Each structure stands twice: as structure tokens, then as C-alpha cells.
């Protein structure tokens, strides 16, 4: 009987000690490339100065033999976990908000693209 009681107590303790975890990690440049901002940009007219003024310093500058590209990246990870002592599970989702802008040798915008996940719109 003592053993049964001990076993039940152990089960109870294990249940009580179980828990959950949640975390969030954000890395990269501030997201300023919402569509309301980038719709002001026009291929063939806007310049690198315009883009830098709107979005700030990029994550990376890439030289392309006379041309150049500005790359903006914001990395957002969210994790959720279940901690049951005997069984532990963690799920981490990472999403990449990003924008890229190509400029010709005169620093005029030639192409650009942006991607923003709904959770980061705000």
C-alpha cells in the first residue's frame, strides 16, 4: 500500500512540476518596408538615396559590377514548448521578413521586392 501511495505521489509531483515554455527572438534591421512605404518607390525614378532615407541602413550591401543591391533582413523566431520532465517538446518557427533593392550604375532603382509576414506588419 505504501508503494502505491508513493507511486501516486510521484505521478502527482511529476504532473505538478510539468510546465510550458514560450520564447521569441528578433534579429535584424527595423522593418520599415510595409507596402504603404514602398508604394512610393518607382523603378527608373527613385534613387538609392530615397531608399536609404525611407528604410535606413540595410543589413547588407552587395556590389554587382557597377550596379549594387541593398538587402534588408529581419529574422523573427517564436518557440513554444511543453516541459513534462519525462517528455519535453519544443517547436521553433523562424520567419524572414526581407526586402531587396537593385540599383544601376547611376544609383537609380531598377527592381525591388519585399516580403513581410502578417505578424510583423504592425
Amino acid at each position, binding site marked *: 500500500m505504501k508503494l502505491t501511495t508513493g507511486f501516486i505521489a510521484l505521478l502527482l509531483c511529476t504532473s505538478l512540476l510539468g510546465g510550458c515554455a514560450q520564447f521569441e527572438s528578433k534579429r535584424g534591421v527595423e522593418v520599415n518596408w510595409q507596402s504603404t512605404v514602398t508604394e512610393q518607390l518607382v523603378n527608373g525614378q527613385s534613387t538609392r538615396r530615397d531608399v536609404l532615407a525611407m528604410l535606413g541602413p540595410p*543589413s547588407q*550591401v552587395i556590389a*554587382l559590377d557597377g550596379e549594387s543591391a541593398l538587402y534588408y533582413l529581419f529574422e523573427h523566431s517564436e518557440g513554444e514548448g511543453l516541459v513534462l520532465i519525462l517528455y*519535453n517538446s519544443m*517547436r*521553433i518557427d523562424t520567419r524572414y521578413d526581407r526586402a531587396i533593392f*537593385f540599383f544601376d550604375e547611376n544609383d537609380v532603382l531598377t527592381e525591388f521586392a*519585399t516580403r513581410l509576414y502578417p505578424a510583423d506588419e504592425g
Partner: protein
Amino acid sequence: MRASTVKTLVTLLACWLLTACSQWHYDLGVPLADTPAPAQHTSLADALDLLGPPLRMSATDTGFVLAWEHWHIRENSVGFSLGALGADFMSADWGEMRIKGEFLLLTFDKDHLLTSATRSEWDNHGGGGKAIQPFFGFISVVDVDDLTEMMPQHRWGSALFQRLPGTLNANSNLDTGQSGLQQRGTPTAAGQQSLEMD
């Protein structure tokens, strides 16, 4: 209480006290499965409309390369330790990893026209191990750090401020966007980064 019942309870108790398992799931990016690779001579503007901004980019001698990727990594491990009984001198661990992913690489010429598109998908066993370790657990039987690290764009600014072996190899640094690109988990003991080992 019958002896068999006692035995069963003792076995269950031991199992509860001594073992535990962990599962980690990493999902990096979004799947590309429904996105077709663009046809040759597609313009850069059309490719960006279709796929959005790439996750990796680098200049090349003939133009530039863009890459999109999605990774799903699952790590399972089971551990057995006597620590819970006050005898923290022995532990046994088993772990394995499964890697699933997609990679799309597009090459553009200097006129911003697509010259090649290649795509790969994989669903592989990514390794694992077993260990019996007395007193201290030094070895992790599953290591996913090189697959889950942050994107290289975050390190771009510090690329020329590395320790000497890395700085000397700056022209071949794959994080600068000027010398090609590489997938996650590429071994660093061979190829362009081998000079950086110290």
C-alpha cells in the same frame, strides 16, 4: 499486495525516475513546394514577383545568384540517468536528427535575365549518436547548431573584423555577398573556409 504487482510498480517507478525524452522541431522559412522554378530568360523583376526577395544572394563574375530555402529539422533524444536516485555517476543518451528541406538557386546574367534554375529537395537522416558517460556529460549526441544558425546577412558588417585567419580569407568569405553562397550545414573543413580554421 501481490509480488507481481509490486514488481510492476517498481519497474514503472524506475522508468519514470530514470528516463526522459525530448523532441525539438525547427521550421526555418516557408515551404517552396507550390512555387514553380521560373523558365530560362525570365527577367529578374518577374522572378522577384513570383518568389519574393531571396534569402541568400551573391555577386558572381557573370552576374549574380539568388537562393530561396526552407528547412525543417527534427531532433529526438532519449536520456537515461541515475541522477534522480542520487547516483549521478552514469548517464546514457541516444539521439537522432531528421532534416527535410528545399533549396532553389537562380542564376542571373548582367542583363538581369535568368540563365539557370536548379532546385533540390531532401528528406534525410541527419545523424545522431549514442553515449554512455560517467560522472559528467561532455558529449551532445545530436548537434543542430550549424543548421539553425542566423542568416549571414546579420554578420555582414563584421566580416572584416574577424580574427586573422578569417580576415586573410575575406575575399573568399561566403557571408559578404561577393564570393558565392552556401547552404546551411556546409562543412567548413574543406573549400573556401578551410583557411579560416585556427
